[in-house]
């Protein structure tokens, strides 16, 4: 780990001021940043400790939504009775990720801002345009089992590793941000970005901007939902493919709303509005789900090791839509896929 200056921020404005300095990094739970510092991937000039800022609460919003403080831990969020009852998709996705120890420490803001687990990003002996712009991409032509099949570029095929963010994409959450120019909100779909020719940037935050909270809309899709995560071991591993489904089914049995977000396949949670629109008004059926899956995966490209993920994703989407329609969400304890 490199040597760095350390300061505790006492309010948001101070954090933003300190965080705007060149080479500054915000420290919350530290579960990703400290790890990256040990790997010399992150070499901050200064570390701004924001753990004492007043952003740890989970609070009701006017209109029926819920505000998740950026500094609330993943565990406190998933086990909050309001989250568990009204947003079980989010609770399920959080509990599908990491380990209990990490969830006790990792925060909601940190979950959004965690970096890719691409092996080449982590290995400073290899090229990586995300870590060192212009150096090349070690993953292209390398080992690509965990890499993107959608939305990648010739500069970067990394994926965003979060489970929580896949659920937040399906729930259409809003990210609250405080920065040098004041406060603003970012629709979740616009928060993370595709790599394009600037893969160093994971998201659309400006320098010095600090995530203060995540707002959930009133509709939590608590009846027809699932988070289906497929990985190389049953627990404590990143997704090869994951699917979050949030659905509304009418009294006549037809689908009124369907949201499908994919994890493990792209640089951000992957949604295709046209695929979701295909399901509206349809009776739940294998054919309808297969059609939506085809549309979701249009343009998918495999690169060697990860080619299997296209077919895996197709099947996972169909299965997840069936689970949501049936009201039988995937258990995060019993990993058998029903």
């Amino acid at each position, binding site marked *: 780990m490199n040597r760095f*200056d350390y300061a*505790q921020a006492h309010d948001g404005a101070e954090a933003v001021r*300190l965080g705007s300095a060149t080479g500054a990094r915000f420290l919350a739970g530290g579960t990703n940043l*400290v790890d990256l510092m*040990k790997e010399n991937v992150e070499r901050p000039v200064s570390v701004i400790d924001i753990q004492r800022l007043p952003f740890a609460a989970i609070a009701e919003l006017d209109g029926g939504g819920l505000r998740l403080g950026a500094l609330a831990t993943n565990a406190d969020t998933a086990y909050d009775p309001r989250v568990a009852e009204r947003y079980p998709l989010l609770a399920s996705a959080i509990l599908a990720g990491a380990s209990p120890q990490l969830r006790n420490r990792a925060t909601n803001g940190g979950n959004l801002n965690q970096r890719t687990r691409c092996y080449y990003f982590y290995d400073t002996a290899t090229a990586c345009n995300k870590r060192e712009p212009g150096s090349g991409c070690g993953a292209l032509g390398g080992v690509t089992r965990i890499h993107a099949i959608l939305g990648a570029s010739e500069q970067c095929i990394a994926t965003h590793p979060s489970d929580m963010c896949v659920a937040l994409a399906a729930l259409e959450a809003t990210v609250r941000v405080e920065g040098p120019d004041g406060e603003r909100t970012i629709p979740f779909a616009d928060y993370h970005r595709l790599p394009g020719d600037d893969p160093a940037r994971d998201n659309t935050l400006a320098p010095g901007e600090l995530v203060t909270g995540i707002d959930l809309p009133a509709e939590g899709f608590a009846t027809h939902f699932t988070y289906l995560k497929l990985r190389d071991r049953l*627990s404590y591993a990143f997704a090869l493919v994951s699917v979050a489904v949030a659905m509304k089914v009418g009294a006549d049995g037809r689908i009124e709303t369907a949201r499908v977000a994919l994890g493990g396949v792209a640089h951000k949670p992957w949604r295709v509005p046209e695929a979701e629109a295909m399901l509206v008004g349809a009776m739940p059926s294998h054919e309808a789900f297969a059609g939506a899956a085809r549309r979701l995966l249009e343009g998918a490209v495999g690169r060697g090791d990860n080619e299997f993920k296209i077919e895996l994703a197709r099947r996972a989407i169909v299965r997840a839509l069936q689970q949501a329609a049936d009201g039988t969400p995937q258990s995060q304890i019993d990993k058998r896929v029903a």
Partner: protein
Amino acid sequence: MDDTVHPATLAGTRETATRDTTLPITLHLNGSAHPTRVAPWVTLLDLLREEAHLTGTKKGCDHGQCGACTVLLDGKRVNSCLVLAVSVDGAKVQTIEGLAGGADGCELDPLQQAFMDHDAFQCGYCTPGQICSARGLIAEGKARTREEVRELMSGNLCRCGAYTNIADAVMHVLQREGASS
């Protein structure tokens, strides 16, 4: 150490350390106040082992992947390798050395006894982390079945593969204590 100029923006905040200084902190280690000074890059794990000489807490991967460094931080299980000590000033830390009770401190925690009774280890390197993690698991109150214990102990790897007996040991204590917690 390089000669980069310290950002002027850091001057004037109270809890500030530059790369040439240390900060005073006090941790409450197994019930005793432990005042010390730390450089900002010292992890809680390294402080426990190298300075407090509480070497029961193990360094396995040092990257939050194995759970050997698990301790209870203000009552919650965490990977101490990923915690900067400077950032948890005032916290209560319980390690494997602090689990035993009784007047002489020699009365084993029921989990320690159960790990022996169920032969829940082979080489023993992961055991302090497993036991601290199990303490946290029982306190959290989210596990009732064996499947839930396995899932919620997934942050602790055992390279010897003693998982079956570890689950037996944890279940044994959970069933005795779970009803009262």
